[in-house]
């Protein structure tokens, strides 16, 4: 929450991003990712035939090395305490803001196969996602 509030350039720090993340140029380069739905009771009333996914988990979106890389980089760049910005009883953690279009792009391409359109007119006829094609059984022989 409130992550988008008060962007001003000086708050952003430059950090290195994992080379393996930036270097990927196709889906084949990305690690093996699996999706699990998180089951939550519906908050909205929708058509019973289709419930759009509200939350899901992607296992292995970043490899262990990439995760470690991020931790080390962010420690090196230095975190900023949120104590002065948010009340302590509401939120108490340290944060680092960084702007990187290439990293966002590469991450997006890893999660894209698991996303589906959202909207009012697609509820009755949910379109197939790429992942549902991948997991669909092979066609019967002719």
């Amino acid at each position, binding site marked *: *929450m*409130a*992550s*988008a*509030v*008060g*962007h001003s350039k000086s708050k952003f720090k430059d*950090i290195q991003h994992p080379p393996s993340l930036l270097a990927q140029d196709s889906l084949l380069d990305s690690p093996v990712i699996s999706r699990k739905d*998180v089951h*939550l*009771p519906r*908050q*909205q*009333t*929708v*058509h019973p035939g289709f419930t759009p996914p*509200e*939350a*899901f*988990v*992607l*296992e*292995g*979106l*970043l490899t*262990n090395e990439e*995760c*470690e890389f*991020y*931790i080390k980089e*962010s420690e090196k760049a230095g*975190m900023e305490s949120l104590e*002065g*910005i*948010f*009340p302590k009883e*509401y*939120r*108490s*953690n*340290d*944060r*680092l803001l*960084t702007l*990187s279009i290439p*990293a*966002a*792009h590469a*991450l*997006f391409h890893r*999660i894209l196969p698991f*996303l589906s*359109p959202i*909207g*009012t*007119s*697609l*509820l*009755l*006829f949910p379109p197939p996602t790429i992942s549902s094609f991948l997991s669909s059984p092979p066609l019967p022989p002719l």
Partner: protein
Amino acid sequence: MGSGAEGVWIPCGLNECIKIGRYQTGCHFSPHIDGPWIPDENCASILTLVLYLNDSESENFPLKGGATNFLRPSSFSHASSLIGQSQTLHEVITTISPKTGRALLFRHDLLHEGAPLLEGRKFILRTEVLFRRIKSALKVPRHPPSSVDRTEKLVSLYNQSDAEYEQGKASDFVESYLEALEIQKADTADATCFILPPSILLEILRKLNDARDVVRTMLTSKGLYRLGRTGELWVNLFLSQWPYADDLAGTPVADNPLTVDWFKIFKKKFTGQSESRRAPKSRSGRKEKRDWLLKEDDFYLLAGRRLANRVTWGDVGGDSARPAIVVDCGGHTFKVGMAGQERPTAFIPAVVGRQRHMHSFSPYSKIVGEEALKRAGLYSLHYPCENDDITNWDNAELILQHSFSNVLKVTTEDHPIIVTENSLYQVSFIFLIC
């Protein structure tokens, strides 16, 4: 996402502002919902992406606790402030524990918390998934805004929250941000309105084997009209009507079959046939019977007249039934009116007001003319013209749209338009306003 978020949204990217969070032992994030990031009218964040960078088995940074809990909103609380209310106990529905490389994606408006970290340090990377609204052949009905007051309150709360953030007032800023989020969430449209996607509608049109039914369907709305012009439909109708036709009414089908307007070909063949049938009947003096065929008149009655949507160069003033719209795009005011009147119908100040903050849609995210001047505190003002030349075409287009649809209440398809022209105008702009 609040009022104004109707339509179909497809994923288009991640927010390039990447947040890396570090929770020390004992740190937490109280129950909350996330706020959307809305860079423009057709682009908004819908999902939150939380990526855990370490877990209990990490070699360098092991941790304990710090799971993300999804909570059931509880309506009962004694606390007066919203921050206080967030401290009350909620029932946990699901728990997602940190695991290296695991990403959690969920809708912004789900209530969740970051549970206190028991041991070690927790690192997360978080950003938002951005979606883009796609154009649909059908108009999406707008969810009516609950009220103007409410919307203005939402806008001013977000502005206030941004200002308090800049001043460093910690609790005030969160308080007004939370209040704005509450209003926005309450205004979110229920997903109970269903519209069939164009592909399904086309499938239905394909099932109709009477041309009259298709034409009637096309008349009901612009979206269906455009859909009904699909060439494939008319090829099939043509072939089912005249399976052995070899003349094709002398039309050039040769070069590229995709560029051929099959609707026109069908119409030509159809009306040509009906004329030849009409002649002997009218001679016999009997009143013409309406048989199953479409007459040429029917076509004009049903579809033909509505096709007129073209740029007319030259003399357009003579038609009193369809007077021309006269537009003068001035640097200070836009003057609009109908031809034949002594004075312009309206003088619209050349100002567009745009919403300052980027956290909500509102039906009034862009306002024009005097309305914008009145609400200069809530909106940032933009001017389409500089030194009497139009420099911002988007803003000029907004003012013209407003003047056609709200002030003159005319459709641009039905009237010619006369624009006072500057030699620097782009031709594309002239086509745009036609």
